[in-house]
Protein backbone atom coordinates (compact mmCIF):
# COMPACT_ATOMS: atom_id res chain seq x y z
CA UNK A 1 0.00 0.00 0.00
CA UNK A 2 1.24 3.45 -0.85
CA UNK A 3 1.94 5.85 1.91
CA UNK A 4 3.28 8.55 -0.38
CA UNK A 5 0.57 10.62 -1.95
CA UNK A 6 1.53 11.18 -5.57
CA UNK A 7 0.71 13.85 -8.13
CA UNK A 8 -2.97 14.21 -9.05
CA UNK A 9 -3.96 11.73 -11.72
CA UNK A 10 -7.62 12.48 -11.70
CA UNK A 11 -9.01 15.78 -10.57
CA UNK A 12 -12.54 17.09 -10.24
CA UNK A 13 -13.01 20.73 -9.37
CA UNK A 14 -16.38 22.28 -8.69
CA UNK A 15 -18.19 19.60 -10.67
CA UNK A 16 -21.95 19.96 -10.97
CA UNK A 17 -24.18 17.51 -12.77
CA UNK A 18 -27.94 17.28 -13.27
CA UNK A 19 -30.58 14.81 -14.34
CA UNK A 20 -33.14 16.84 -16.21
CA UNK A 21 -34.14 19.71 -13.96
CA UNK A 22 -32.67 18.37 -10.78
CA UNK A 23 -29.04 18.86 -9.89
CA UNK A 24 -27.35 15.89 -8.27
CA UNK A 25 -23.81 17.19 -7.74
CA UNK A 26 -23.43 20.66 -6.29
CA UNK A 27 -19.73 21.28 -6.82
CA UNK A 28 -17.63 18.24 -6.12
CA UNK A 29 -13.90 18.64 -5.54
CA UNK A 30 -11.96 15.44 -5.52
CA UNK A 31 -8.36 14.49 -6.22
CA UNK A 32 -7.09 11.00 -6.90
CA UNK A 33 -3.30 10.97 -6.56
CA UNK A 34 -1.42 8.64 -8.88
CA UNK A 35 -0.90 5.19 -7.45
CA UNK A 36 -3.38 5.44 -4.63
CA UNK A 37 -6.73 3.92 -3.69
CA UNK A 38 -9.47 6.39 -2.84
CA UNK A 39 -12.73 5.19 -1.28
CA UNK A 40 -15.76 7.37 -1.86
CA UNK A 41 -18.31 6.69 0.87
CA UNK A 42 -21.65 8.01 1.96
CA UNK A 43 -25.29 7.12 2.40
CA UNK A 44 -27.53 6.03 -0.40
CA UNK A 45 -28.21 8.77 -2.88
CA UNK A 46 -25.38 11.05 -1.85
CA UNK A 47 -24.25 11.37 -5.46
CA UNK A 48 -21.41 8.85 -5.41
CA UNK A 49 -22.57 6.92 -8.44
CA UNK A 50 -23.23 10.17 -10.27
CA UNK A 51 -19.66 11.28 -9.60
CA UNK A 52 -18.37 8.06 -11.12
CA UNK A 53 -20.70 8.43 -14.08
CA UNK A 54 -19.23 11.85 -14.75
CA UNK A 55 -15.79 10.25 -14.75
CA UNK A 56 -16.93 7.53 -17.12
CA UNK A 57 -18.48 10.05 -19.51
CA UNK A 58 -21.99 8.69 -18.93
CA UNK A 59 -23.28 11.91 -17.38
CA UNK A 60 -21.86 15.27 -18.45
CA UNK A 61 -20.67 17.81 -15.89
CA UNK A 62 -22.66 21.00 -16.34
CA UNK A 63 -20.06 23.07 -14.50
CA UNK A 64 -16.55 22.61 -13.25
CA UNK A 65 -13.64 20.69 -14.67
CA UNK A 66 -12.66 17.05 -14.96
CA UNK A 67 -8.97 16.42 -15.62
CA UNK A 68 -7.17 13.19 -16.35
CA UNK A 69 -3.42 13.57 -16.02
CA UNK A 70 -3.81 17.27 -16.72
CA UNK A 71 -6.04 16.85 -19.77
CA UNK A 72 -9.60 18.15 -19.96
CA UNK A 73 -11.90 15.19 -20.37
CA UNK A 74 -15.36 16.59 -19.73
CA UNK A 75 -17.70 16.00 -22.66
CA UNK A 76 -15.69 13.08 -24.00
CA UNK A 77 -17.74 10.06 -25.06
CA UNK A 78 -17.49 6.94 -22.88
CA UNK A 79 -15.74 4.88 -25.55
CA UNK A 80 -13.12 7.57 -26.06
CA UNK A 81 -12.54 7.87 -22.32
CA UNK A 82 -12.10 4.13 -22.10
CA UNK A 83 -9.44 4.33 -24.78
CA UNK A 84 -7.83 7.24 -22.91
CA UNK A 85 -7.29 5.04 -19.87
CA UNK A 86 -10.36 5.32 -17.65
CA UNK A 87 -11.59 1.82 -16.92
CA UNK A 88 -14.99 1.96 -15.28
CA UNK A 89 -16.90 -0.98 -13.87
CA UNK A 90 -20.48 0.14 -13.39
CA UNK A 91 -22.81 -0.79 -10.56
CA UNK A 92 -24.35 -4.23 -10.78
CA UNK A 93 -22.37 -6.62 -12.95
CA UNK A 94 -19.78 -5.15 -15.26
CA UNK A 95 -19.99 -8.02 -17.74
CA UNK A 96 -22.02 -8.97 -20.80
CA UNK A 97 -24.08 -11.90 -19.50
CA UNK A 98 -24.78 -13.49 -22.87
CA UNK A 99 -21.19 -13.35 -24.05
CA UNK A 100 -18.60 -15.93 -23.07
CA UNK A 101 -15.64 -15.08 -20.86
CA UNK A 102 -13.47 -15.05 -23.94
CA UNK A 103 -15.84 -12.72 -25.77
CA UNK A 104 -16.11 -10.40 -22.79
CA UNK A 105 -12.36 -10.06 -22.78
CA UNK A 106 -12.38 -9.61 -26.52
CA UNK A 107 -14.60 -6.55 -26.06
CA UNK A 108 -11.79 -4.99 -24.07
CA UNK A 109 -9.66 -5.10 -27.20
CA UNK A 110 -11.54 -2.05 -28.44
CA UNK A 111 -9.28 -0.01 -26.21
CA UNK A 112 -6.35 -0.97 -28.44
CA UNK A 113 -4.76 -4.04 -26.89
CA UNK A 114 -4.87 -7.32 -28.79
CA UNK A 115 -7.12 -10.06 -27.48
CA UNK A 116 -4.39 -12.65 -27.01
CA UNK A 117 -2.43 -10.41 -24.67
CA UNK A 118 -5.55 -9.43 -22.78
CA UNK A 119 -6.50 -13.06 -22.21
CA UNK A 120 -3.01 -14.07 -21.22
CA UNK A 121 -2.89 -11.40 -18.53
CA UNK A 122 -6.42 -11.98 -17.33
CA UNK A 123 -5.91 -15.73 -16.84
CA UNK A 124 -2.61 -15.15 -15.15
CA UNK A 125 -4.21 -12.79 -12.67
CA UNK A 126 -7.47 -14.75 -12.29
CA UNK A 127 -6.78 -18.41 -13.08
CA UNK A 128 -10.43 -19.33 -12.39
CA UNK A 129 -11.46 -17.35 -15.47
CA UNK A 130 -9.13 -19.38 -17.64
CA UNK A 131 -10.97 -22.53 -16.68
CA UNK A 132 -14.24 -20.94 -17.80
CA UNK A 133 -13.12 -19.41 -21.06
CA UNK A 134 -16.05 -20.82 -23.07
CA UNK A 135 -18.69 -20.30 -20.41
CA UNK A 136 -21.37 -17.61 -20.72
CA UNK A 137 -20.58 -14.86 -18.26
CA UNK A 138 -24.19 -14.74 -17.07
CA UNK A 139 -24.00 -18.33 -15.87
CA UNK A 140 -21.04 -17.73 -13.57
CA UNK A 141 -21.37 -16.87 -9.91
CA UNK A 142 -21.63 -13.23 -8.91
CA UNK A 143 -18.11 -13.20 -7.55
CA UNK A 144 -16.66 -14.69 -10.72
CA UNK A 145 -18.55 -12.17 -12.80
CA UNK A 146 -17.01 -9.32 -10.85
CA UNK A 147 -13.62 -10.98 -11.28
CA UNK A 148 -14.21 -10.96 -15.01
CA UNK A 149 -15.26 -7.33 -14.85
CA UNK A 150 -12.03 -6.51 -13.03
CA UNK A 151 -10.00 -8.47 -15.56
CA UNK A 152 -11.71 -6.65 -18.40
CA UNK A 153 -11.09 -3.30 -16.73
CA UNK A 154 -7.45 -4.02 -16.14
CA UNK A 155 -6.84 -5.46 -19.59
CA UNK A 156 -6.10 -2.16 -21.24
CA UNK A 157 -3.48 -1.05 -18.71
CA UNK A 158 -5.72 1.75 -17.53
CA UNK A 159 -4.46 4.87 -15.83
CA UNK A 160 -7.30 4.64 -13.39
CA UNK A 161 -9.76 1.95 -12.35
CA UNK A 162 -13.20 3.19 -11.31
CA UNK A 163 -15.27 0.70 -9.31
CA UNK A 164 -18.94 1.23 -8.47
CA UNK A 165 -20.40 -1.03 -5.78
CA UNK A 166 -18.38 -4.11 -6.54
CA UNK A 167 -20.23 -5.88 -3.73
CA UNK A 168 -23.75 -5.39 -5.10
CA UNK A 169 -25.80 -8.44 -4.24
CA UNK A 170 -22.84 -10.57 -3.15
CA UNK A 171 -22.39 -12.47 0.08
CA UNK A 172 -19.95 -10.91 2.60
CA UNK A 173 -17.37 -13.66 2.19
CA UNK A 174 -17.22 -13.14 -1.58
CA UNK A 175 -16.99 -9.39 -1.06
CA UNK A 176 -14.00 -9.83 1.22
CA UNK A 177 -12.37 -12.07 -1.36
CA UNK A 178 -12.96 -9.52 -4.12
CA UNK A 179 -11.41 -6.74 -2.11
CA UNK A 180 -8.37 -8.87 -1.51
CA UNK A 181 -8.03 -8.96 -5.27
CA UNK A 182 -8.49 -5.21 -5.45
CA UNK A 183 -5.73 -4.81 -2.89
CA UNK A 184 -3.44 -6.98 -5.02
CA UNK A 185 -4.22 -4.88 -8.06
CA UNK A 186 -3.49 -1.71 -6.10
CA UNK A 187 -0.17 -3.13 -5.06
CA UNK A 188 0.86 -3.25 -8.70
CA UNK A 189 0.52 0.52 -8.86
CA UNK A 190 -2.90 1.00 -10.52
CA UNK A 191 -4.80 4.04 -9.23
CA UNK A 192 -8.27 3.14 -8.05
CA UNK A 193 -11.37 5.14 -7.22
CA UNK A 194 -13.94 2.99 -5.49
CA UNK A 195 -17.52 3.53 -4.33
CA UNK A 196 -18.74 0.93 -1.88
CA UNK A 197 -21.75 0.35 0.28
CA UNK A 198 -19.78 -1.79 2.72
CA UNK A 199 -17.66 1.03 4.08
CA UNK A 200 -15.62 -0.91 6.60
CA UNK A 201 -14.65 -3.48 4.03
CA UNK A 202 -13.31 -0.96 1.57
CA UNK A 203 -11.49 1.09 4.19
CA UNK A 204 -9.31 -1.95 4.67
CA UNK A 205 -7.74 -1.45 1.26
CA UNK A 206 -7.95 2.33 0.78
CA UNK A 207 -5.17 4.89 1.23
CA UNK A 208 -7.61 7.78 1.26
CA UNK A 209 -11.29 8.18 1.87
CA UNK A 210 -13.91 10.82 1.28
CA UNK A 211 -17.46 11.01 2.60
CA UNK A 212 -20.10 12.39 0.36
CA UNK A 213 -23.48 13.68 1.53
CA UNK A 214 -26.06 15.56 -0.45
CA UNK A 215 -24.04 16.01 -3.60
CA UNK A 216 -20.97 17.39 -1.86
CA UNK A 217 -17.78 16.05 -0.27
CA UNK A 218 -18.17 16.58 3.46
CA UNK A 219 -15.05 14.93 4.81
CA UNK A 220 -11.72 13.72 3.44
CA UNK A 221 -8.75 12.04 4.97
CA UNK A 222 -7.00 8.83 5.90
CA UNK A 223 -9.30 5.85 6.53
CA UNK A 224 -8.55 5.94 10.24
CA UNK A 225 -9.71 9.54 10.42
CA UNK A 226 -12.92 8.83 8.55
CA UNK A 227 -14.05 5.60 10.17
CA UNK A 228 -15.44 7.15 13.32
CA UNK A 229 -18.05 9.12 11.42
CA UNK A 230 -19.37 6.18 9.48
CA UNK A 231 -21.97 4.52 11.66
CA UNK A 232 -23.94 7.70 12.19
CA UNK A 233 -23.81 8.58 8.51
CA UNK A 234 -25.43 5.26 7.59
CA UNK A 235 -27.65 4.10 10.41
CA UNK A 236 -28.39 7.29 12.24
CA UNK A 237 -27.58 7.54 15.90
CA UNK A 238 -26.69 4.02 17.01
CA UNK A 239 -26.38 4.62 20.71
Amino acid at each position, binding site marked *: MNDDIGVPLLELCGVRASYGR*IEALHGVDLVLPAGSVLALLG*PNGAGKSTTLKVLGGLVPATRGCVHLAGRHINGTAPHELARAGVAMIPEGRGVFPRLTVHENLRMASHTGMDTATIEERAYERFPRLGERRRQLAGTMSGGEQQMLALARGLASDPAVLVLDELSMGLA*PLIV*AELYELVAQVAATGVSILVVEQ*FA*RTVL*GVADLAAIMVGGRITAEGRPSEIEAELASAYLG*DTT
Partner: protein
Amino acid sequence: MSLLEVSDVTVRFGGNLALDAVSLQVSAGSVTGLIGPNGAGKTTMFNVITGLQPVDAGRVALDGTDITGVRPFRRARAGIARTFQRLESFGSMTVRENILVAAEVRRDRDGAAPRMATDALLDRLSLGDVADERTEELPTGRARLVEIARALATRPKLLLLDEPASGLSETEGDGLAVLLTELAQGGLGILLVEHDVPLVMRVCAQIFVLDFGAVLASGSAREIQADRNVQEAYLGTTEVVA
Protein backbone atom coordinates in the same frame (compact mmCIF):
# COMPACT_ATOMS: atom_id res chain seq x y z
CA MET B 1 -55.09 -11.54 13.98
CA SER B 2 -52.83 -9.38 11.85
CA LEU B 3 -54.20 -7.24 9.03
CA LEU B 4 -51.60 -8.63 6.62
CA GLU B 5 -50.05 -12.03 7.05
CA VAL B 6 -47.23 -13.02 4.70
CA SER B 7 -46.16 -16.61 5.30
CA ASP B 8 -43.06 -18.34 3.93
CA VAL B 9 -43.08 -16.49 0.63
CA THR B 10 -40.41 -17.56 -1.85
CA VAL B 11 -39.71 -15.87 -5.17
CA ARG B 12 -37.08 -17.04 -7.63
CA PHE B 13 -35.68 -15.08 -10.56
CA GLY B 14 -33.95 -17.67 -12.66
CA GLY B 15 -31.51 -19.25 -10.25
CA ASN B 16 -31.54 -16.37 -7.76
CA LEU B 17 -33.65 -16.47 -4.65
CA ALA B 18 -35.11 -12.99 -4.44
CA LEU B 19 -37.21 -13.92 -1.42
CA ASP B 20 -36.44 -16.99 0.63
CA ALA B 21 -39.35 -18.16 2.80
CA VAL B 22 -40.06 -14.72 4.16
CA SER B 23 -42.80 -14.23 6.73
CA LEU B 24 -43.95 -10.92 8.09
CA GLN B 25 -47.04 -9.36 9.63
CA VAL B 26 -48.57 -5.92 9.60
CA SER B 27 -51.11 -4.93 12.23
CA ALA B 28 -53.94 -2.50 11.72
CA GLY B 29 -53.39 0.82 13.41
CA SER B 30 -49.60 0.78 13.38
CA VAL B 31 -46.59 1.42 11.16
CA THR B 32 -44.34 -1.54 10.39
CA GLY B 33 -40.89 -0.95 8.93
CA LEU B 34 -39.14 -3.04 6.27
CA ILE B 35 -35.48 -2.14 5.86
CA GLY B 36 -32.36 -3.63 4.39
CA PRO B 37 -29.53 -2.91 1.96
CA ASN B 38 -30.06 -2.37 -1.76
CA GLY B 39 -31.18 -5.52 -3.49
CA ALA B 40 -32.38 -7.21 -0.32
CA GLY B 41 -35.83 -7.91 -1.79
CA LYS B 42 -37.95 -5.15 -0.28
CA THR B 43 -39.58 -3.97 -3.50
CA THR B 44 -40.09 -7.59 -4.59
CA MET B 45 -41.99 -8.10 -1.35
CA PHE B 46 -44.22 -5.13 -2.20
CA ASN B 47 -44.85 -6.57 -5.65
CA VAL B 48 -45.80 -9.87 -4.04
CA ILE B 49 -48.24 -8.24 -1.64
CA THR B 50 -49.91 -6.20 -4.38
CA GLY B 51 -50.04 -9.13 -6.79
CA LEU B 52 -47.67 -7.77 -9.43
CA GLN B 53 -45.25 -10.59 -8.66
CA PRO B 54 -46.48 -14.20 -8.43
CA VAL B 55 -44.92 -16.31 -5.71
CA ASP B 56 -43.15 -19.63 -6.12
CA ALA B 57 -44.24 -20.70 -2.66
CA GLY B 58 -45.98 -19.32 0.39
CA ARG B 59 -49.17 -17.39 0.95
CA VAL B 60 -50.43 -13.88 1.49
CA ALA B 61 -53.56 -13.18 3.53
CA LEU B 62 -55.44 -9.96 4.14
CA ASP B 63 -57.83 -9.86 7.11
CA GLY B 64 -57.54 -13.61 7.33
CA THR B 65 -58.61 -14.15 3.72
CA ASP B 66 -56.09 -15.83 1.45
CA ILE B 67 -55.35 -13.51 -1.48
CA THR B 68 -52.43 -15.40 -3.02
CA GLY B 69 -53.15 -15.57 -6.74
CA VAL B 70 -55.78 -12.83 -6.70
CA ARG B 71 -55.35 -10.28 -9.49
CA PRO B 72 -53.80 -6.91 -8.61
CA PHE B 73 -56.88 -4.76 -9.15
CA ARG B 74 -58.99 -7.03 -6.97
CA ARG B 75 -56.43 -6.77 -4.18
CA ALA B 76 -56.61 -2.99 -4.53
CA ARG B 77 -60.38 -3.20 -4.17
CA ALA B 78 -59.93 -5.44 -1.15
CA GLY B 79 -58.05 -2.57 0.50
CA ILE B 80 -54.37 -2.71 -0.43
CA ALA B 81 -52.80 0.48 -1.78
CA ARG B 82 -49.18 1.30 -2.49
CA THR B 83 -46.66 3.80 -3.74
CA PHE B 84 -43.67 3.01 -5.94
CA GLN B 85 -39.97 3.53 -5.34
CA ARG B 86 -39.40 4.51 -8.95
CA LEU B 87 -42.28 6.85 -9.44
CA GLU B 88 -45.36 5.50 -11.17
CA SER B 89 -47.50 8.59 -11.03
CA PHE B 90 -49.68 9.32 -14.05
CA GLY B 91 -47.16 11.74 -15.52
CA SER B 92 -49.23 13.35 -18.24
CA MET B 93 -52.10 14.11 -15.85
CA THR B 94 -52.40 16.90 -13.33
CA VAL B 95 -51.95 16.27 -9.63
CA ARG B 96 -55.69 16.67 -9.12
CA GLU B 97 -56.49 14.16 -11.87
CA ASN B 98 -54.04 11.64 -10.39
CA ILE B 99 -55.97 11.63 -7.15
CA LEU B 100 -59.37 12.00 -8.77
CA VAL B 101 -59.01 8.95 -10.99
CA ALA B 102 -58.27 6.80 -7.95
CA ALA B 103 -61.23 8.29 -6.09
CA GLU B 104 -63.47 7.66 -9.09
CA VAL B 105 -62.49 4.02 -9.36
CA ARG B 106 -63.43 3.82 -5.71
CA ARG B 107 -66.77 5.52 -6.41
CA ASP B 108 -67.68 2.65 -8.67
CA ARG B 109 -68.11 0.68 -5.49
CA ASP B 110 -69.68 3.21 -3.15
CA GLY B 111 -71.30 6.62 -3.30
CA ALA B 112 -68.62 8.91 -1.87
CA ALA B 113 -68.15 12.09 -3.89
CA PRO B 114 -64.75 11.80 -5.57
CA ARG B 115 -64.17 15.50 -6.10
CA MET B 116 -64.64 16.31 -2.44
CA ALA B 117 -62.39 13.45 -1.42
CA THR B 118 -59.77 14.73 -3.87
CA ASP B 119 -59.89 18.27 -2.49
CA ALA B 120 -59.54 16.95 1.03
CA LEU B 121 -56.46 14.93 0.09
CA LEU B 122 -54.88 17.84 -1.80
CA ASP B 123 -55.30 19.84 1.35
CA ARG B 124 -54.08 17.17 3.72
CA LEU B 125 -50.85 16.59 1.78
CA SER B 126 -50.30 20.31 1.07
CA LEU B 127 -50.52 19.79 -2.68
CA GLY B 128 -53.03 22.56 -3.31
CA ASP B 129 -50.49 24.90 -4.89
CA VAL B 130 -49.58 22.35 -7.59
CA ALA B 131 -53.02 20.78 -8.02
CA ASP B 132 -53.27 21.76 -11.68
CA GLU B 133 -49.68 21.10 -12.70
CA ARG B 134 -48.65 18.18 -14.83
CA THR B 135 -47.29 15.55 -12.44
CA GLU B 136 -44.32 14.73 -14.66
CA GLU B 137 -43.01 18.25 -14.08
CA LEU B 138 -42.95 18.02 -10.29
CA PRO B 139 -39.78 17.51 -8.30
CA THR B 140 -39.44 13.97 -6.99
CA GLY B 141 -40.45 14.84 -3.46
CA ARG B 142 -43.78 16.36 -4.39
CA ALA B 143 -44.46 13.56 -6.87
CA ARG B 144 -44.05 11.07 -4.00
CA LEU B 145 -46.68 12.92 -2.03
CA VAL B 146 -48.98 12.69 -5.07
CA GLU B 147 -48.55 8.93 -5.03
CA ILE B 148 -49.42 8.81 -1.34
CA ALA B 149 -52.50 10.95 -1.94
CA ARG B 150 -53.52 8.73 -4.84
CA ALA B 151 -53.10 5.62 -2.69
CA LEU B 152 -55.16 7.16 0.12
CA ALA B 153 -57.89 8.09 -2.36
CA THR B 154 -58.68 4.39 -2.69
CA ARG B 155 -59.42 4.41 1.07
CA PRO B 156 -57.25 1.39 1.85
CA LYS B 157 -56.95 -0.77 4.93
CA LEU B 158 -53.29 -1.44 4.23
CA LEU B 159 -50.89 1.11 2.79
CA LEU B 160 -47.51 0.08 1.39
CA LEU B 161 -45.02 2.94 1.09
CA ASP B 162 -41.84 2.40 -0.92
CA GLU B 163 -39.30 5.03 0.13
CA PRO B 164 -41.79 7.84 0.59
CA ALA B 165 -39.25 10.13 2.27
CA SER B 166 -36.67 10.08 -0.50
CA GLY B 167 -36.84 13.45 -2.16
CA LEU B 168 -38.57 15.17 0.72
CA SER B 169 -37.05 18.16 2.46
CA GLU B 170 -36.46 17.97 6.20
CA THR B 171 -39.70 19.80 6.96
CA GLU B 172 -41.63 17.66 4.51
CA GLY B 173 -40.02 14.57 6.08
CA ASP B 174 -41.23 15.67 9.52
CA GLY B 175 -44.66 16.28 8.05
CA LEU B 176 -44.61 12.76 6.62
CA ALA B 177 -43.74 11.28 9.99
CA VAL B 178 -46.67 13.08 11.57
CA LEU B 179 -48.98 12.00 8.72
CA LEU B 180 -47.98 8.35 9.07
CA THR B 181 -48.56 8.42 12.78
CA GLU B 182 -51.97 10.04 12.35
CA LEU B 183 -53.00 7.59 9.64
CA ALA B 184 -52.02 4.68 11.85
CA GLN B 185 -53.98 6.15 14.75
CA GLY B 186 -56.96 6.27 12.40
CA GLY B 187 -56.74 2.48 12.09
CA LEU B 188 -54.71 2.10 8.88
CA GLY B 189 -52.01 -0.55 8.71
CA ILE B 190 -48.84 0.77 7.10
CA LEU B 191 -45.82 -1.11 5.78
CA LEU B 192 -42.91 1.26 5.24
CA VAL B 193 -39.78 0.66 3.16
CA GLU B 194 -37.39 3.49 3.74
CA HIS B 195 -33.68 4.22 3.54
CA ASP B 196 -33.98 7.08 5.99
CA VAL B 197 -33.39 4.80 8.96
CA PRO B 198 -33.89 7.50 11.63
CA LEU B 199 -37.39 8.10 10.24
CA VAL B 200 -38.13 4.38 10.38
CA MET B 201 -36.90 4.20 13.96
CA ARG B 202 -39.11 7.14 14.85
CA VAL B 203 -42.45 5.96 13.49
CA CYS B 204 -42.35 2.16 13.42
CA ALA B 205 -43.60 -0.04 16.20
CA GLN B 206 -42.17 -3.14 14.60
CA ILE B 207 -39.30 -3.44 12.13
CA PHE B 208 -38.27 -6.28 9.81
CA VAL B 209 -34.76 -6.30 8.35
CA LEU B 210 -34.32 -8.08 5.01
CA ASP B 211 -30.96 -9.16 3.68
CA PHE B 212 -30.38 -11.44 0.69
CA GLY B 213 -34.08 -12.14 0.50
CA ALA B 214 -34.39 -13.40 4.03
CA VAL B 215 -35.47 -11.86 7.32
CA LEU B 216 -32.25 -11.04 9.15
CA ALA B 217 -33.86 -9.58 12.25
CA SER B 218 -37.15 -8.26 13.53
CA GLY B 219 -38.21 -6.33 16.58
CA SER B 220 -38.54 -2.86 17.98
CA ALA B 221 -36.36 0.04 16.89
CA ARG B 222 -34.09 -0.33 19.88
CA GLU B 223 -33.60 -4.06 19.33
CA ILE B 224 -32.77 -3.52 15.67
CA GLN B 225 -30.20 -0.79 16.32
CA ALA B 226 -28.37 -2.95 18.79
CA ASP B 227 -28.24 -5.96 16.47
CA ARG B 228 -24.71 -6.74 15.29
CA ASN B 229 -25.94 -8.59 12.21
CA VAL B 230 -27.83 -5.52 11.11
CA GLN B 231 -24.81 -3.30 11.47
CA GLU B 232 -22.78 -5.73 9.42
CA ALA B 233 -25.39 -5.90 6.69
CA TYR B 234 -25.23 -2.17 6.36
CA LEU B 235 -21.53 -1.51 6.80
CA GLY B 236 -19.78 -4.73 5.88
CA THR B 237 -17.24 -6.68 7.84
CA THR B 238 -13.89 -5.40 9.00
CA GLU B 239 -12.10 -8.72 8.65
CA VAL B 240 -10.33 -8.06 5.38
CA VAL B 241 -6.86 -9.34 4.83
CA ALA B 242 -5.35 -6.54 2.86
